[in-house]
């Protein structure tokens, strides 16, 4: 392994600046990637990671700065220049033809010719097998792509890049589409690659993964490189703080605000599939004013159906009482008007009209309420004014309230939804994954708002896959499994590990 001994880095970026009209996407970016390393680049969404990688792959040209590959300065006019220099890119969204075989996909665009005309399939097949075996990719060249799983497809993409002779691989958010098992397999493949002298640039914002696979980590924030750290000498928390440039928020509730007044009472709630199998099975609980009730559980154990039943979206047996009123037979709208707010699990499907402006999204779910409506009429100016208030109070980053919701980042969309559901003083808030897919800044803001509303007497049903959030933000914690509430856990005396095993049914009684 004499290669690792050479001081010459495989990739070196010096003082890269990239301006778009009216905005600087990258400033003073400096990055050194040692040959034979997995080098991670982390940063929040929109920090400039993608632009940087596009520059390195020849899709964008920098306005200033220098790119050196193996010590030699280069200028890329297009991705083909980058490929010629031994750089390959695996995109987040696969670019494979479904009805072609692996072999056909791999050679597409660089077909080996026999005597310049006929495609030499057997030679290609042989090389693909060689590459697959050398790096432990386990790809069969004759499989049809449409028959492959996501992890296999990703390996085909990697193989495609290697087939074209890449020595330096850029992987853009490769784990975003994978399940944990597949992530492990991917990391094994990456280790195989670096062992053979390849260099991997790994773009991600999942800090745990980065820490487990990378040899070096560079943090990028607001378009510039902040620091390069060694994973052995840092923590996920420290990385996250570097990413946001400030201290991380902690999910915690300082003093109890729980009162004696029951705001929401659910009794014997049962939801069945069309076949009659119960998905939510005889669930009962009470949430008092000022209390946050957390529901922990592995996803798909009835949480979504429970929420829909409480919101009146899905028919259910049992009774639901809001304060002292039986609302079991009420429509969704009547429940909402009576003070039940809802932060839906899937904001794109259930929380927003993506192709409608923000101020119309402010009205959604509150069509009949002030300030959105006056009698049967929509109060345009009232809604617009209140949207501006939410944008301001909840720090929704947007140039205006007339842009479509689809133009905002996920975190800003979520802040808009939270702001909307907190408006009009709800009595109960059903919050499903309120901070999922949200950057840390927005996460802190959402927690702050939840705490403040709780202090004012809001009752919250919190469903989350983030165990830290569940433990830190709940006054009471219950575990759901197979549609049943299987046990209660004291959030003050439980670790995420204990809670995790409780969710899977393992572990003793608390």
């Amino acid at each position, binding site marked *: 392994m004499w290669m690792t001994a050479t001081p010459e880095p495989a990739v070196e970026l010096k003082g890269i600046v990239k301006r*778009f*009209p*009216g*905005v*600087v*996407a990258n400033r003073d970016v400096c990055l050194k990637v040692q040959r034979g390393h997995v080098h991670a680049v982390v940063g929040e969404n*929109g920090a400039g990671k993608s632009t940087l990688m596009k520059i390195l792959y020849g899709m964008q040209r920098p306005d200033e700065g220098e790119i050196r590959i193996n010590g030699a300065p280069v200028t890329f006019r297009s991705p083909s220049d980058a490929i010629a220099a031994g750089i390959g890119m695996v995109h987040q969204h696969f670019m494979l033809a479904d009805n072609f075989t692996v072999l056909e996909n791999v050679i597409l665009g660089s077909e080996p010719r026999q005597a310049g005309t006929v495609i030499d399939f057997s030679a290609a097949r042989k090389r693909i097998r060689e590459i697959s075996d050398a790096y432990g990719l386990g790809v069969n060249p004759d499989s049809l792509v449409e028959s492959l799983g996501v992890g296999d497809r990703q390996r085909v993409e990697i193989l495609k890049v290697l087939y074209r002779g890449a020595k330096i691989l850029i992987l853009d958010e490769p784990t975003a589409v994978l399940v944990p098992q597949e992530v492990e397999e991917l990391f094994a493949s990456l280790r195989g690659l670096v062992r053979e002298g390849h260099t991997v640039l790994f773009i991600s914002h999942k800090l745990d993964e980065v820490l487990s696979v990378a040899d070096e980590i560079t943090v990028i924030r*607001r*378009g510039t490189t902040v620091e390069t750290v060694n994973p052995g000498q840092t923590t996920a928390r420290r990385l996250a703080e570097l990413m946001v440039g400030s201290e991380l928020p902690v999910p915690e509730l300082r003093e109890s605000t729980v009162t004696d007044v029951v705001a929401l009472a659910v009794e014997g709630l049962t939801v069945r599939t069309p076949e009659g199998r119960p998905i939510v099975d005889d669930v009962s609980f009470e949430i008092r004013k000022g209390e946050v009730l957390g529901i922990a559980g592995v996803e798909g154990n009835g949480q979504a159906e429970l929420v829909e039943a409480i*919101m*009146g*979206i899905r028919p259910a047996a049992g009774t639901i009482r809001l304060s002292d009123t039986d609302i079991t037979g009420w*429509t*969704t*709208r*009547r*429940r*909402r*008007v009576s003070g039940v707010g*809802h932060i*839906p699990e899937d904001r794109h*499907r*259930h*929380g*927003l*009209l*993506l*192709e*409608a402006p923000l101020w*119309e999204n402010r*009205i*959604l*779910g*509150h*069509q*009949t309420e002030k300030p959105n*409506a006056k009698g*049967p*009429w*929509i109060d*345009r100016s009232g809604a617009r004014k209140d949207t501006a208030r939410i944008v301001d109070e909840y720090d929704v*980053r*947007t*140039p*205006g309230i*007339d*842009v*479509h919701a*689809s*133009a*905002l980042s996920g975190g800003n969309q979520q802040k808009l939804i939270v702001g909307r559901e907190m408006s009009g003083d709800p009595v109960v808030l059903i919050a499903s994954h309120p901070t999922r897919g949200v950057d840390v800044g927005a996460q802190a803001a959402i927690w702050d708002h939840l705490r403040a509303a709780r202090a004012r007497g809001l009752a919250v049903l919190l469903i989350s896959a983030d165990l830290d959030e569940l433990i830190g933000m709940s006054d009471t914690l219950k575990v759901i499994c197979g549609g049943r509430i299987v046990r209660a856990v004291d959030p003050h005396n439980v670790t995420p590990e204990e809670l995790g095993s409780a969710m899977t049914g393992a572990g003793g009684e608390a």
Partner: protein
Amino acid sequence: MISRFNVRSAALTLVAPVLAIVLAVGITTVVLLVSGDEPLETFGYMVDYGFQPRTMVLTLNLATTYYFSALAVAIGFRMNLFNIGVDGQYRLAALIAAAVGGAVTLPAPLHVTLTVLVAVLVGACWAGLAGLLKATRGVSEVISTIMLNVIATGLGAWLLHTDRLAVAVSGSNNIGTKPIGPSGQVPGLHLIAGTEVKVYGFVVVAALAGIGFHFMLNSTRFGFDLRATGRSESAAVASGVNVKKMIVGTMVLSGAVAGLVGMPQLLGASYSYSLDFPTGLGFTGIAIALLGRNNPLGIAFGALLWSFLTNSASILDVHQISKEIVIIMQGVIVLSVVVAYELVRRYRKSAEQRRVGQELAATAEPVKG
């Protein structure tokens, strides 16, 4: 900033139809060259003829009819409901309204109101059937409205018989409902100078219907729920919209407007529903609604354009130029407009995301620096 957004988006909205028309003219030119006709001359005939006062009135009159039809379709489209049944709805509505209007004599405003009301009710009920079927049994409105069209045809034929609603006209092989008396007729308007021909009085009603449509969509809770359901049914359900009620309500409204389709012709020209009452207007409405992007102003332009083209078929025929050219043009316009709108929509979406990103980054810069 907001106004800049709006100016851009207005400009983009115009790009698609203009592109489509340019493409249509281009393809038609090729077709004309192949068939051996002089394209410039042909377009010249169409334009010259189209801008004569008399033709302008004819265009406006036909466009009035088209407008109601497209509006009826657009109401459904806005909620992703495909009301293919406008054709059957207006035919049945016009027939029954004509029979009622012909059977009574009332003071003028009352007589007209009664006839129109009957038409609106019949149209609403007929479309409401499809709405009910979808809401209660989950039957696709596409299928049910097509079937209701066929049933309307059969029912209409049965009703339009001298034993029932029709009377024979002496000396004619035509039969129709008893003509509506002068008190039930809607007088025409002298809107265009240079011709004796009058514009249907219903043009005013059409304009009001367009304004009402815009108002309903944008200023009422019903309209908001309708648009929300059209954009994302799942989000609408979560927001508390009763989608089943909306389906029935929207179909009823669509059918009510469909009931008006036959009124300009019935109350402004023929005064009777006879064997040769115009058919197929409901399908033309679908094309025009697409052309006008379900927007009341867009539909108005679409209806005028369509009507202009339909009318210009006459002058082409006179000059021995195959009048099917017009159908080719209409077809190409619809096809290319659909494609162009989709392209513009995508472009607009990515442009907006880019713009938002840039503006946010630009404002973030001083904070950091």
